[in-house]
């Protein structure tokens, strides 16, 4: 307990630094919610348009399901995206402000740095997604929470996926400095086609399915579609998502630990912003 309290204070100290930054920068706050809201509007209107063209009888139920699958996919994929960006961009903020030299000579452990980045990722994800979830309900009568308690399992898995991808991005930033910063925005978008966000894994060409199957997100979205279509919980898919996340998280943590040490050997912590 005696070691835990200072550790928690250090984690809070770094989180406080980012929260204070957002208090002083409304463009940063707007940016958090901008893309999730825009994505929800675009996909929501698109799905509503197609639903209105074909919506009669049993086809109406199918189009409502399609709307749910599309909007559910958009919102849940944003959970992974925002979690990954929240963590990676918070680290980038330290690089941009040339503050890492002070942070890394404080008693803050690398594990506490990661904990603070995860804390900020959760805050950024919640703040960024809340308006989009509200809009989906107001404009399209799509209630994400109607998925029930299983929603929390979906969200948790996608957040964890965002974190291990972000650990990879932070590792690359430690290796290549700010030159790798575009990865903070783009890397998870590259996994979108294989994550089966809007279509089942079986829709992918056979050669690409193994890539989808090693991604937790593909299993989460299979589970989401099952929940929307049948109201049931696909425990098998969730089990795969949890197991894969654990494996990837361990690999991400190992990569970060190794890259942090390499950065200390190469002197990269002194010139990371260059």
């Amino acid at each position, binding site marked *: 307990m005696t070691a835990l309290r200072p550790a928690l*204070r250090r984690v809070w100290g*770094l989180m406080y630094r980012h929260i*204070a*930054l957002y208090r002083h*920068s409304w463009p940063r706050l707007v940016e958090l919610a901008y893309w999730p809201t825009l994505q929800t509007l675009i996909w929501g209107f698109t799905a509503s348009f197609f639903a209105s063209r074909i919506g009669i009888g049993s086809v109406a139920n199918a189009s409502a399901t399609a709307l749910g699958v599309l909007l559910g996919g958009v919102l849940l994929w944003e959970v992974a995206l925002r979690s990954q960006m929240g963590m990676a961009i918070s680290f980038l903020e330290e690089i941009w402000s040339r503050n890492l030299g002070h942070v890394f000579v404080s008693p803050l452990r690398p594990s506490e740095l990661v904990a603070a980045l995860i804390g900020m990722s959760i805050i950024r994800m919640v703040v960024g997604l809340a308006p989009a979830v509200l809009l989906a309900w107001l404009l399209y009568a799509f209630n994400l929470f109607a998925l029930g308690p299983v929603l929390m399992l979906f969200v948790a898995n996608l957040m964890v996926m965002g974190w291990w991808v972000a650990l990879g991005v932070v590792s690359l930033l430690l290796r290549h400095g700010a030159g790798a910063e575009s990865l903070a925005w783009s890397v998870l978008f590259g996994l979108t086609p294989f994550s089966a966000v809007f279509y089942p894994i079986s829709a992918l060409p056979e050669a690409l399915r193994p890539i989808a199957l090693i991604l937790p997100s593909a299993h989460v979205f299979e589970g989401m579609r099952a929940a929307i279509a049948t109201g049931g919980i696909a425990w098998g898919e969730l089990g795969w998502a949890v197991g894969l996340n654990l494996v990837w998280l361990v690999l991400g943590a190992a990569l970060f630990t190794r890259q942090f040490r390499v950065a200390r050997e190469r*002197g990269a912590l002194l010139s990371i912003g260059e």
Partner: protein
Amino acid sequence: MSVIEVSGLSKRYGQTLAVDDISFDVPRGQTVGLLGGNGAGKTTTIAMLLGLLIPTSGRISILGHDMARDRFSALARMNFSSPYVALPHRLTVAENLRVYGHLYDVPRIDRRIAELADELDLHALLGRPAGELSAGQKTRVALAKSLINRPELLLLDEPTASLDPDTGDLVRGWLERYRAESGCTVLLASHNMAEVERLCSDILVMKRGRIVDRGTPEELLARYRRDDLEEVFLDIARDRTAEAVS
């Protein structure tokens, strides 16, 4: 007892030997200067003392903690200031100090910030964004950050660089008082010979990664038969040894 004990310390980057087998110690309560031209190895040495850089070989012990195995215990009891490392610009001075108060687990942070504001005349700056301060104000804030945890060891990398003579003198005067009152040990890297002469009781001179001389300012001046340290610095930089000069 020495606060810093360094033995056989080297750092190699590929073919370049930035620090070459140096050994030194810094006794408690002293202000020791680290002198040397560009590329002498001062910054590399300080980075290794701070744990930012892993040595290729050698051993560093700070406040009794082996930096290879227990650097966080040492880091909690020391601090660092450099004009080349910034504080987040958008945060106010008070917010910046609060961040570091948390990172260093400082009890009653706001009271500590008020004390530092008294000592360094920061009250008018506490609510201002760090990015809007002048160079002199930033230096005072950086010093406040480096003192937030009442460090037993303070590493200063060119603390008065880019300051006008008046502000530089104020900072030097304040550092003298602080060291005398707190008993803090200071390792000061500087290119400002007058500053080193005024503040330091002992000077380590580095060149090409090695410690090439050591002594009090008076001893160095006598050894090189010079009137000020700037001339000593030039003698060493231009390979005029103490023997050759005498």
